[in-house]
C-alpha cells in the first residue's frame, strides 16, 4: 500500500514542502546573480535611444565583456550560493600550472590568456545562457505558483462571500472553475521550480566544473600517482622482507651451518652413524642457506639501491645456469622504480631462458637511449615462446606496463628468442 500512497502523499504535499520553498528562494537568488551580467544589456538604453545602432551592438557585447572580465568572481559567487542555500558542491576546475602562471601575470596578458582558455567560454555560456534560461523557467513557474496561491485564496473567499462580495464580484460557478484551475497550477508549478533548480545545478556542474578533458586529465594524473604508489609500496615491502630475512633467518642459518661445520671438523671420534647424520645435517644447512640466499637476493638486492642497475645485474647473470654475456651501458642512475623493474625483468627473463629455452648461451644488453632505458635478453634456444601463453611472459609484460614501458618478444619456433623492453625514465 505504501508504494501506492507515498507518491500520492508526496503530490498532495508538494506545494507546501520546505524543499520546494527553498528551491523557490534559490531560484530568486540565482536569478539575481544571472542579472549581474545580463542586466548590462539594458545599460546602453539608459543613455541612448533604443534605435541607436551602437547601443544595440553594445547590448550583446557588454554582458560578454562582463562574463570574461568577472568570470572567475561570478563563478565563485555562484559556487558559494549553491553551497550555502542548496548544499550543492559544484566541483572545481583543476588549478593547473597554466592557471598559476596567468594569475601571476599583469592585467592584459592575464586577460589574453583568459580569452584563449576554453574554460572562460564554458563559464560564459553558463552565466549568459544556460543559467539564465533555467532561472527564467524557475521564475515563471515560481510566479505562477505564488499567483496561483493568491488567486486560489481570493477565489475561495469570493465563493464563500457570495457573488456580490465587494472585493470580487463574479458568478460562483465561474469562481469555482477559476479556483480549480488555480489549484492545478499550484500543484504543478512547484515541480517545475524544483526541476529548474536541478537543471541549473546540472548546467553549473557541467559548465562551471571541470570539463570532460580536465576530468580525464585529472583521472590520469590520479591513476598514475596511485599506480606509482602501489609499485613503490610493493618495492618497500620487498625491501622490508629482504631486511627481515637478512637479519633473522639467514644469520641463524649461517650460525647453524657454522656450528655443524665446527662439530663435524672437531668431533672426529663419534660413531660412524652420528658422523653421517652430522654430515648430512651440515650439507642440508648449507643447501638451505644457498636457496634462501638466492630467494632473498631476488627480493631486493641492496647493491641495486647502493650502486645501481649495472652492479646489481652481475649477480643474476652469474647465477643463471645458462652462461650469460652481460653488457650494460647506463652512464647515469635512472629512477629507482625503473631500476627495480629493469632488474626484475632481466631476472625473470633469464629464469625463463633457463626453464624453457634449452639454450646454450644468453646475452643481456642494457643501455640508455635518451630518456628510454632499453634492455634486450637474447638466447639461442628453441624459441616458440608466446606472450599469450606462459605466465612468465605475461608477468614480464605487466612489469613493463607498470611504468608505461613496452615489452616485445620475437620467438619463432626453432629459435632464437629475443625479448626487448623499453622503459621510460621520466615518470
Amino acid at each position: 500500500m505504501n508504494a501506492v500512497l507515498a507518491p500520492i502523499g508526496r503530490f498532495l504535499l508538494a506545494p507546501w514542502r520546505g524543499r520546494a520553498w527553498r528551491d523557490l528562494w534559490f531560484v530568486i537568488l540565482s536569478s539575481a546573480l544571472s542579472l549581474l551580467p545580463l542586466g548590462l544589456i539594458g545599460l546602453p538604453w539608459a543613455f541612448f535611444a533604443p534605435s541607436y545602432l551602437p547601443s544595440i551592438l553594445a547590448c550583446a557585447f557588454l554582458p560578454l565583456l562582463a562574463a570574461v572580465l568577472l568570470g572567475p568572481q561570478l563563478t565563485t559567487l555562484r559556487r558559494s550560493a549553491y553551497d550555502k542555500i542548496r548544499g550543492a558542491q559544484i566541483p572545481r576546475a583543476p588549478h593547473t600550472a597554466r592557471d598559476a602562471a596567468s594569475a601571476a601575470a599583469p592585467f592584459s596578458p592575464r586577460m589574453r590568456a583568459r580569452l584563449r582558455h576554453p574554460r572562460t567560454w564554458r563559464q560564459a555560456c553558463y552565466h549568459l545562457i544556460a543559467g539564465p534560461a533555467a532561472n527564467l523557467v524557475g521564475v515563471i513557474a515560481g510566479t505562477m505558483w505564488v499567483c496561483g496561491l493568491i488567486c486560489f485564496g481570493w477565489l475561495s473567499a469570493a465563493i464563500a462571500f457570495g457573488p456580490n462580495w465587494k472585493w470580487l464580484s463574479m458568478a460562483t460557478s465561474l469562481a469555482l472553475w477559476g479556483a480549480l484551475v488555480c489549484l492545478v497550477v499550484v500543484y504543478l508549478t512547484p515541480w517545475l521550480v524544483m526541476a529548474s533548480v536541478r537543471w541549473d545545478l546540472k548546467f553549473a556542474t557541467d559548465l562551471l566544473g571541470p570539463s570532460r578533458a580536465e576530468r580525464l586529465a585529472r583521472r590520469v594524473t590520479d591513476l598514475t600517482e596511485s599506480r606509482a604508489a602501489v609499485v613503490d609500496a610493493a618495492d618497500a615491502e620487498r625491501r622490508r622482507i629482504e631486511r627481515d630475512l637478512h637479519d633473522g633467518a639467514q644469520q641463524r642459518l649461517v650460525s647453524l651451518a657454522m656450528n655443524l661445520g665446527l662439530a663435524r671438523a672437531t668431533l672426529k671420534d663419534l660413531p660412524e652413524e652420528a658422523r653421517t647424520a652430522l654430515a648430512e645435517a651440515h650439507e642440508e644447512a648449507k643447501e638451505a642457506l644457498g636457496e634462501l640466499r638466492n630467494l632473498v637476493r631476488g627480493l631486493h638486492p641492496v647493491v641495486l639501491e647502493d650502486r645501481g642497475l649495472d652492479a646489481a645485474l652481475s649477480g643474476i647473470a652469474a647465477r643463471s645456469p645458462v652462461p650469460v654475456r652481460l653488457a650494460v651501458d647506463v652512464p647515469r642512475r635512472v629512477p629507482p622504480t625503473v631500476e627495480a623493474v629493469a632488474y626484475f625483468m632481466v631476472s625473470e627473463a633469464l629464469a625463463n631462458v633457463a626453464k624453457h629455452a634449452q639454450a646454450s648461451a644468453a646475452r643481456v644488453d642494457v643501455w640508455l637511449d635518451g630518456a628510454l632505458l632499453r634492455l634486450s635478453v637474447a638466447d639461442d634456444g628453441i624459441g616458440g615462446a608466446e606472450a599469450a601463453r606462459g605466465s612468465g611472459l605475461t608477468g614480464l609484460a605487466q612489469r613493463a606496463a607498470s611504468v608505461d614501458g613496452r615489452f616485445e618478444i620475437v620467438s619463432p619456433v626453432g629459435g632464437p628468442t629475443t625479448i626487448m623492453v623499453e622503459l621510460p625514465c621520466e615518470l
Partner: protein
Amino acid sequence: MRTVIAEDSVLLRAGLTKLLETTGFEVAAAVDDAAGLLAAVERHRPELVIADVRMPPTFTDEGIRAALVVRRQWPEVAIMVLSQYVEERYAADLLSTSTTGVGYLLKDRVADVDVFLESLRRVAAGGTALDPEVVAQLLVRRQNTPLDRLTGREREVLGLMAEGRSNAGIAEKLVVSESAVAKHINSIFAKLDLPASEGDHRRVLAVLRFLESASPSV
C-alpha cells in the same frame, strides 16, 4: 693470530669468536659497526680483520668502506670481508688499492670450517680469497679485453687464481696434473702480456687484469 671481528649480528659475532678461539686465533675485539672496527684496529693493531659488509647505520656497504680505510691507514692489516651476498662491484672497490692480504667471501663459506680457516690464514699471509660467486659475476662482464683471447679452460684457471688458490689447489679442483695447470698459467701470462721476470707477482697482476676487465671504474 690477533684478530678483530666486526659483525652486527650478535649470534654470528659470538659464533665467529667461538670458532676462531677454538682454532688458535686470538680475538682481540668483536665489535658491531664500522666506527667500532676502526677504533679497535687503531687500538689493537691486529694482523687480521674480519668484517661484515652490511652494518649500521645504513646497512649497505659500511664494511667495504671501513675495510678501505683500514687498507689506507694500516696497509699491513689483512682483511677478510664477509657478506650474505657478494657483489663484483664491492670486490672491485676492495681490490682497488691493493690485491694482497684481502679476501671477500660469502658468509655461507664459514660453514666449511676447514676451508674457511685456510682462507683466513692465506689472506693473513698476504694472499687473496675471492668467492667463486664473485669470480662468476666477473666472468659475465668480459667485453673486448685481452681476456677474450683466453680459452675456456684458461679462463677457468684464471678464475680459480682469483679465488686465491695455489697451483696444487687448482689442479685438484679441475682434476688435472699440476704441470698442466702450470702450462695454462704460463699461457695466460703470455696472452695477457705479463713479462716472465716478475715471478709470483705475475699471479697478482693476472688477477688484477681479470678484475680490471670487469669493472672500468677500477
